[in-house]
């Protein structure tokens, strides 16, 4: 599975994002995090191949997420579904 790491100065929180390479909301979220210098990792689920896809699905569901994108996990315990700027700002103290 190809997890991409984006380095940023703002790295006090662990941010992981499940995204789709074609999704406009996901692109907007990636842009927003980059603009705010947030360090984060993401995986474009549509580019995941074979059985890893099912694994990703289980991972998202186990974390209490739904299969819509982007799904953002902050510090392994805060789950944000969709590009909800206010929620992201709150969780990342931006």
């Amino acid at each position: 599975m190809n997890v991409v790491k984006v380095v940023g100065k703002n790295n006090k929180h662990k941010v992981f994002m499940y995204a789709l390479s074609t999704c406009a909301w996901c692109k907007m979220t990636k842009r927003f995090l980059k603009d705010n210098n947030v360090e984060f990792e993401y995986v474009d689920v549509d580019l995941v191949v074979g059985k890893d896809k099912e694994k990703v699905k289980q991972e998202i569901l186990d974390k209490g997420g739904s299969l819509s994108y982007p799904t953002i996990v902050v510090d392994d315990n805060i789950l944000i579904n969709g590009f909800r700027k206010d929620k992201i700002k709150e969780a990342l103290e931006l």
Partner: protein
Amino acid sequence: MTTLDEVKRRAESDAKTYGYHLNPDPAFLKDLLEGLKSNEERYGYPSCPCRLASGKFEFDRDIICPCDYRDPDAMEFGACYCGLYVRKDVYESKTSLSPVPERRPMEKQARAYSMADVAEEKPSEPIASAKKPSDVKLKLWYCKQCGYVVFREDPPYICPICKAKREFFAELQMRLDMFS
């Protein structure tokens, strides 16, 4: 190969026909159109850029743009799930869109994840929902209000002809004596 302009023209023409507008944010719109173009190139049809497709037409039929969920989503939230099509009042108010919750049933979403395993699937595995495209059962549905007939897995949420709600659709049972 489909060009970005063709994807845009197609979306514009559909928006006009059904009384919608395309997303007023040029950067957002460009991302959406590029996503549609990528999907058309890799799957052979423009499935929703914001949903995971299986790559099997039968499984993705409901999320090929304009998706089956556009009309009810636009009615309730002012835009479709990905934000490509927006309602006139939302377009004119210039307010920024909020994410639209996913309406597509979970069992249909899940199909895109298990597709990769179909080839190596063991016969003893319990089948939770349709795993093979051939498991998708198509039926004839008719709108009791206007008579529109559609051959799909489920009836439309809203009749594309007369705008009647899903409750107005009934399964069309065909009998041989109907033709005698």
